[in-house]
């Protein structure tokens, strides 16, 4: 989309150099995606509160606006106006940069998501690898937050989180290999294009492994050990308040969005669905919200694991399963 023919022609006719065109498109796209992220986070937080309330037989937010729809704006205003507490012994640079390092990977991983036929910001040949590589940077953000805060709970939380994310990255990456083998491409749009039957049906083991390790990667319950409020007092973002705290929350929900979008693209058929082609983005959104609803459902029904159980699950169950999945896929592809 960055170099579509009409735009280049327009630039040539008006004497705009190509790099200026590319740079301005990139800027506009970044702002658009940021706006989508902001809107998405508002919707997801509202949804999370309502879903959790539903599971616990409560009403959830009801007072601000119709059925509490404006509650989030009120909360955001409250967090904006709060004092920015800065721990005296914290490392100033690391402390300030950590929320940005958490946020950026999730944000820029949305840039390669194909939401409809031909509707993608930058369709990289190595799109899948790009997402895996970029999301692994967010571990650095968590470690920075924990280390920079000068707080024992934050350090323990970030250590746990780093251990968890590094070990779940392995089964997550291996579970995708089955999909790449069938689709014959690492380009996300061609993976969706090749997906006439959902890969969740063709790759059941891979789907389960990918989904579980995605939950662990985004630190969602039952894998939210880095932020256990009962033992670690919210773990790595323990010392953050006001604006910076909001940024962590923001980053977490965008990571949830990008992980769910990747699940839809890889295993649930992306934009495919009944009806004409232009309905693609709507089908994508429907599937995205279904995946997010399931993730919230899991969060509010399952209790949290212990850290050793999490490690055992990753290395002793999911990793062998992912390897088995590659093996089975290879044999079946050889036979057919």
């Amino acid at each position: 989309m960055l170099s579509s023919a009409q735009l280049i022609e327009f630039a040539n006719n008006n004497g705009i150099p190509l790099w200026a065109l590319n740079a301005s498109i990139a800027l506009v796209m970044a702002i658009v995606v940021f706006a989508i992220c902001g809107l998405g986070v508002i919707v997801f937080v509202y949804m999370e509160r309502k879903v959790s309330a539903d599971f616990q037989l409560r009403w959830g937010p009801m007072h601000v606006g119709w059925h509490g729809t404006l509650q989030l704006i009120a909360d955001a205003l409250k967090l904006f106006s709060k004092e920015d507490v800065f721990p005296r012994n914290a490392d100033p640079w690391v402390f300030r940069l950590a929320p940005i390092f958490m946020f950026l990977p999730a944000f820029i991983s949305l840039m390669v998501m194909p939401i409809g036929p031909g509707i993608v910001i930058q369709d990289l040949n190595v799109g899948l690898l790009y997402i895996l590589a970029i999301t692994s940077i967010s571990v650095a953000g968590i470690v920075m937050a924990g280390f920079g805060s000068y707080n024992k709970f934050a350090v323990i939380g970030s250590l746990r989180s780093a251990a968890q994310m590094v070990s779940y990255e392995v089964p997550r990456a291996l579970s995708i290999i089955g999909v790449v083998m069938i689709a014959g491409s690492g380009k996300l749009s061609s993976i969706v294009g090749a997906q006439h039957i959902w890969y969740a049906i063709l790759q059941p083991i891979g789907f389960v492994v990918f989904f579980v390790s995605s939950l662990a990667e985004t630190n969602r319950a039952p894998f939210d050990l880095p932020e256990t409020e009962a033992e670690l007092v919210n773990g790595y973002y323990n010392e953050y308040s006001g604006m910076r705290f909001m940024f962590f929350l923001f980053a977490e929900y965008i990571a949830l969005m990008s992980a769910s979008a990747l699940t839809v693209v890889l295993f649930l058929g992306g934009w495919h669905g009944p009806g004409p082609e232009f309905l693609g983005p709507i089908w994508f959104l429907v599937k995205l919200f279904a995946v997010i609803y399931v993730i919230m459902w899991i969060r509010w029904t399952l209790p949290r694991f212990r850290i050793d159980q999490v490690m055992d699950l990753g290395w002793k169950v999911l990793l062998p399963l992912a390897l088995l999945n590659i093996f089975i896929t290879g044999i079946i592809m050889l036979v057919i």
Partner: protein
Amino acid sequence: MNDIATYIIFFGLSTMAILSAIAIVTRRNLFHAAMFLGFLMLVVAGFYFLLDADLVGMMQVFVYVGGVIVVLLFGIMLTSQMTNVRMVSAMKQKGFTFLAVTGFVALLISVFTKVNLSVSTATAPKDTTSLVGKLFMTNYILPFEVMSVLLLAALIGAIVIARQEVKQ
């Protein structure tokens, strides 16, 4: 992408790379040095993208930033002074370091003065991933298989070590 933009990006990346490399050795705070190393790795990935080598660039980010740097930070945090933010390097083994660095610089200078670096005029291939895959499965099958067996052994070894700890 035209030439001027490429030059601007190249010199911007080079400046960032050199500055962060200097910062790595001048920072006494180990955590900061590790962060700068991570930034340097990202900048190097940027060079690969500038050369249209997207697969190599991705691998650079995946392996070095996502793997090596995180393990490095992990190592720093697991040391005995793990909650001390202002942990600084003790600067032991100064003599050895100077000797090793001087030797390495001398080696680099001798290499760069003797080798005639030529610039290829061929256009970069579009789909590097499938090209690399084909080469792995044909010309370089033996090194590739040896490497994969080695990595598998490391993986199994990690699981075995983890299991022994549970038994105790």
